[in-house]
């Protein structure tokens, strides 16, 4: 069975500091991993994904994520946080070996608060 864990309900960081939002996953096959961001009263916006290839994936708004197979992790990072990065972040996983019918499983979300 697929699962995703986001161990932190909230991450607080000062503007200009690096940020990390953690995500670990469990799938039986090859993981397809995603990060989405949600601003208040909005839908989810796609940030980046890992399917195959380079373990370091770069996405929108200066975010990047590192796929670590041995630790089954896909942490989201940004070198220098902005106040406008404050939002709810969701990690998601799909089993790539399961075919097109496999559903996307979301983590519980992490609220990122960037203080000026």
């Amino acid at each position, binding site marked *: 069975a697929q699962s995703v864990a986001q161990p932190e309900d909230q991450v607080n960081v000062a503007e200009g500091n690096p940020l990390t939002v953690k995500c670990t996953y469990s799938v039986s096959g090859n993981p*397809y991993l*995603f990060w*989405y961001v949600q601003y208040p*009263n*909005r*839908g*989810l*916006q*796609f940030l980046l*994904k890992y*399917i195959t290839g380079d373990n370091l994936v770069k996405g929108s708004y200066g975010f990047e994520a590192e796929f670590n197979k041995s630790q089954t992790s896909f942490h989201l990072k940004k070198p220098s946080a902005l106040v406008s990065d404050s939002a*709810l972040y*969701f990690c998601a996983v*799909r089993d790539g070996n399961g075919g*097109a*019918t496999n*559903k*996307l499983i*979301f983590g*519980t*979300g992490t*609220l990122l608060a960037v203080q000026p």
Partner: protein
Amino acid sequence: EADIYQTPRYLVIGTGKKITLECSQTMGHDKMYWYQQDPGMELHLIHYSYGVNSTEKGDLSSESTVSRIRTEHFPLTLESARPSHTSQYLCASRGLGADTQYFGPGTRLTVL
């Protein structure tokens, strides 16, 4: 940028009313999804469709129903709204052979 639309964006309605939440996408995506997002912000899949005339129930039991008569349209209906249905409803779609789901802006439903 994804072209997926949801109407209305906000809806306040009384108990017992029938409502339909609209979701449309102009990308020709075959797969479409409905999620319910509770106040704790977790996302729960309630319905999905892999194409016209295909609908399946998701992981979270829901009293709502869906239909998929046209590729671009995936409406969700509540026959008799109750306060427990108060939530945000998010629609998403994914193209054939594609990996990424794209989301609409959501409908925030309040049932009094």
